[in-house]
């Protein structure tokens, strides 16, 4: 009796061990299993986690599935920051999704260096000529292209026309001195001049980056990145100009802890008419509307003007700063993934994207689909631009980009000086 009980126990133990082994085995093999079968699964991660683009992307995936039997999409829409973290983990584990959102620049090139994304230069060549000029720049390095762009845009000042009127500002500021004057007028009228998401840091770096572009010019930024030296007087001067603004205390109360699209964040402050302007990309009107009370936004009270020029600076007021989104292809992706990128770059599909008013298309033929007056304004400004600089926290290697964000945030909090900002960024660049 005793011995049978023991053997039964051993048997159970064995069964348990076997079950455990199967489980572990399943973890490792699940990925390859999907691809070797007759259906090809395309894992697609994008950051359009809210409508309208959320459902538009899903529709396009369904159309593609219908036209390509055996292809199945597995779409994972993620919020911006969550996306970055999750993607980093997956890529470091050597397991990138088949198609994933990218902003290009240093981050993408680091992923490319590690062999995690496909070189799609030859594929993109097929539809390259349908794109607007320089659309591929943020995604190309050393003559190789690692992603296909889907949208573009630029950063500029979005302002509340009513509040500007209340402060008696009749002409939009074209120089930094005018701009500071406008801020003073707004303050005198009891209006919070600027909404800023200090907690998230990237909105703050726009100010320093634009000032560096206006003072030193685009080439200075390229040169500094190449030489890993940001200590040139122009960069210190950019910081000093930013400090002039910070010293006016133009930001909303508690801006250092404010998020961007949170209920009480930068976009909500702007959308609810509690601040006169924000420096933000082409998506600003949409997010303002989404985060404002009653989802109303500012409507036609919202206006746009480019970042002002700095007197004596080498940069033009027409040099644009911004970026867009594109899709990169993971190293193990099936050929259909690249095929799909071509599919969404078709003018009709690009028009669908543009019409949702969520993106500015990179496909030239789709430009007619932009109907939103604000976006049209951005598109027109962009079309006249004399130069283009990608977001610094994307253009540079991640460690350098983060240091730009951190140091500028310190400057805006009044905790550091312009020359220390330049030095900290240089140190981070040298360290790599």
């Amino acid at each position, binding site marked *: 009796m005793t011995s049978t009980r023991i053997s039964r126990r051993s048997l159970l133990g064995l069964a348990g061990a076997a079950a455990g082994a199967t489980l572990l085995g399943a973890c490792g093999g699940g990925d390859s299993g999907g691809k070797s079968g007759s259906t090809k699964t395309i894992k697609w991660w994008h950051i359009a986690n809210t409508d309208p683009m959320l459902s538009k992307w899903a529709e396009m995936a369904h159309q593609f599935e219908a036209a390509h039997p055996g292809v199945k999409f597995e779409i994972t829409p993620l919020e911006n920051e969550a996306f970055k973290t999750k993607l980093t983990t997956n*890529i*470091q584990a050597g397991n990138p999704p088949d198609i994933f959102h990218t902003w290009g620049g240093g981050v993408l090139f680091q992923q490319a260096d590690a*062999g995690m994304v496909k070189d799609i230069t030859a594929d993109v060549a097929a539809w390259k000529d349908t794109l607007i000029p320089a659309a591929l720049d943020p995604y190309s390095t050393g003559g190789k292209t690692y992603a296909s762009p889907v949208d573009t845009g630029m950063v500029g000042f979005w302002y509340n026309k009513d509040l500007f009127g209340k402060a008696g500002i009749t002409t939009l500021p074209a120089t930094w001195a005018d701009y500071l004057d406008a801020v003073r007028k707004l303050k005198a009228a009891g209006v919070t001049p600027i909404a800023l998401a200090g*907690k998230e*840091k990237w909105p703050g770096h726009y100010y320093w980056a634009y000032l560096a572009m206006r003072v030193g010019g685009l080439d200075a930024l390229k040169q500094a990145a190449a030489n890993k030296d940001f200590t040139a007087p122009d960069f210190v001067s950019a910081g000093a100009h930013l400090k002039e603004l910070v010293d006016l205390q133009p930001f909303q*109360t508690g801006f250092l*802890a404010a998020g961007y699209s*949170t209920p*009480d964040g930068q976009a909500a402050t702007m959308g609810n008419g509690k601040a006169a302007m924000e420096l933000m990309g082409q998506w600003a009107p949409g997010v303002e509307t989404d985060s404002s009370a009653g989802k109303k936004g500012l409507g036609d009270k919202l206006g746009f003007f480019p970042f002002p020029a700095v007197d004596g600076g080498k940069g033009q007021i027409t040099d644009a700063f911004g970026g867009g989104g594109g899709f990169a292809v993971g190293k193990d992706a099936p050929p259909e993934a690249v095929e799909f990128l071509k599919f969404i770059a078709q003018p009709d599909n690009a028009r669908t994207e543009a019409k949702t008013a969520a993106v500015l298309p990179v496909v030239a033929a789709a430009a007619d689909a932009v109907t939103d007056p604000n976006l049209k304004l951005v598109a027109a400004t962009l079309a006249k631009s004399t130069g283009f600089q990608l977001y610094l926290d994307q253009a540079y290697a991640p460690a350098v980009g*983060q240091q730009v964000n951190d140091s500028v945030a310190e400057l805006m909090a009044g905790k550091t000086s312009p020359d220390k900002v330049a030095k900290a960024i240089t140190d981070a660049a040298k360290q790599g």
Partner: protein
Amino acid sequence: MVRRRRRTWSTIALFLTPALLIFGLLVLTPMVVAAYSSFFSWNGFGAPTDFVGLGNFRRLLVDDIFVGDLERTLLLIVLSMVIQLPVALALAMLLNQPLRGRRLYRMVFFAPYVLSEVVTAVLFTMIFSPNQGLANHLTRLVGLGDLGATWLADTDTVMYSLFFVISWKYFGFHTILYLAGRQAIPQELHEAAALDGAGGWNAFRHITLPLLGGTIRISVFLSILGTIQLFDMVWVLTGGGPIRSSETLAVTMFQEGFKRFHVGYASAISMVIFLISLTFGLLYQRFVLRRDLEGAVTTMGDQR
């Protein structure tokens, strides 16, 4: 008999193997990998090749943020010891008194502990929100103006706001621990003390406190370890800001590893967290928890 024992052993081995495998794979392996990569300058892609020896650790010593992390951790520990735990103890003593609605209080005080750290942090970002937050609304009501607007936005107050939220979440847990410990003290002791004429304070000082010793030592242990490893709450509440003034060790590790792709450096930080926790844990068990771990009163008889 011998054969039977051997069979028992094989059964034990069979049952243990899956657990050991999973433990080895999910706990030991990552630790070894982290220790290994902490000696490299590595961005996390491919295999680490750039060996820097102790370079990452030397860098830590002169990194203002890292040294600041240690100071902030110490501040939180001291605040917990001086404010949070004594308050929890006092509440436990109160809840032990026969007062009306005692069960309700116990439940209400324990409720925050049931929430996850992330939910707590989201809740308090709303409460501390500068324009619509409850905290600011309250300070206005009592005539303190916008005092509450910058709870989390001021580098001077953010750590105290953080401590407030941590205390709010965890005091209930410690209160329940103390309450359980208090109820395990036989009533006869207090009755005897009362007969001998001991007042409330004397009874607390000479009976309750010494007999709660074991519970207090465990609660201090848990509180300190939790503080050293603090992450979720800070990450959601402040993101380590404003301008990195509320970063903890784990937040700095995350920043370096996931934002700057300094995976080798981040691994070095994780090793330091591990070593601090381990050293503290061992020393505390060796010197403070010794009596509690030896446990039963009978063995004490043997030693004396």
